[in-house]
């Protein structure tokens, strides 16, 4: 892909606020375990964060996860990091695949972070025009 990149408008969250959400497909530990996940693009997240229920959806078992403590605005929290990566692509751009080792948390928020999505794409966010733009890295 050449040129200025592909853009998508902000989408409303359940609270009605528009934010830079992005739809990704994650391919779990077995090839038939494809899960579409809407997450918030978050440059403050070192890595992508998913609700713990997605671990089972993606084929992870307890043995595939390691417990860790994470820091967030509200303080520290318990989380589980995947020992094995799964593959992912941005819906609408299936030709560009990248690895994600998700951090699973006891929350319903999905965040796309820097060490996976943002290694595969340079992402620009325009609050003024309320859209995000992706350019392959």
């Amino acid at each position, binding site marked *: *892909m*050449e*040129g*200025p*990149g*592909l*853009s*998508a*408008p902000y*989408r409303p*969250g*359940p*609270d*009605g*606020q528009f*934010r830079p959400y*992005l*739809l990704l497909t994650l391919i779990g530990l077995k090839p038939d375990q494809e899960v*579409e*996940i*809407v997450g*918030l693009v*978050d440059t*403050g*997240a*070192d*890595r992508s*964060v998913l*609700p713990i*229920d*997605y671990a*089972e*959806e993606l084929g992870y078992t307890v043995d595939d996860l390691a417990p*860790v403590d*994470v*820091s*967030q*605005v*509200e303080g520290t929290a318990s*989380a589980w*990091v995947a020992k094995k990566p799964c593959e992912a692509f941005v*819906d*609408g*751009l299936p030709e560009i695949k990248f690895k994600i080792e998700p*951090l699973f*948390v006891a*929350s*319903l*928020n*999905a*965040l796309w*972070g820097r060490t996976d999505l943002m290694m595969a794409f340079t992402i620009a966010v325009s609050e003024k025009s309320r859209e995000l733009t992706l350019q392959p890295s």
Partner: protein
Amino acid sequence: MAAQDQESFRRAQAKLDPKEDLAPYMGKWVALRNGKVVASDLSAKGLRSQPKVRPTDAIIPVPRSRAGYFVA
């Protein structure tokens, strides 16, 4: 980049956009079919076990509030 690429990208990204207000389901998981909620549950596993949920339905969480900033 062709305008066609831009349009198909936007259509792909809008695939799971709900066609109804999800605020009543905050804190739960919902099954969406054609953008409409067909079932809800406190867990994704519980939702998938409901008879009215089809394997092709989108299963998505509805957070209570805005995400925090993780610095894991």
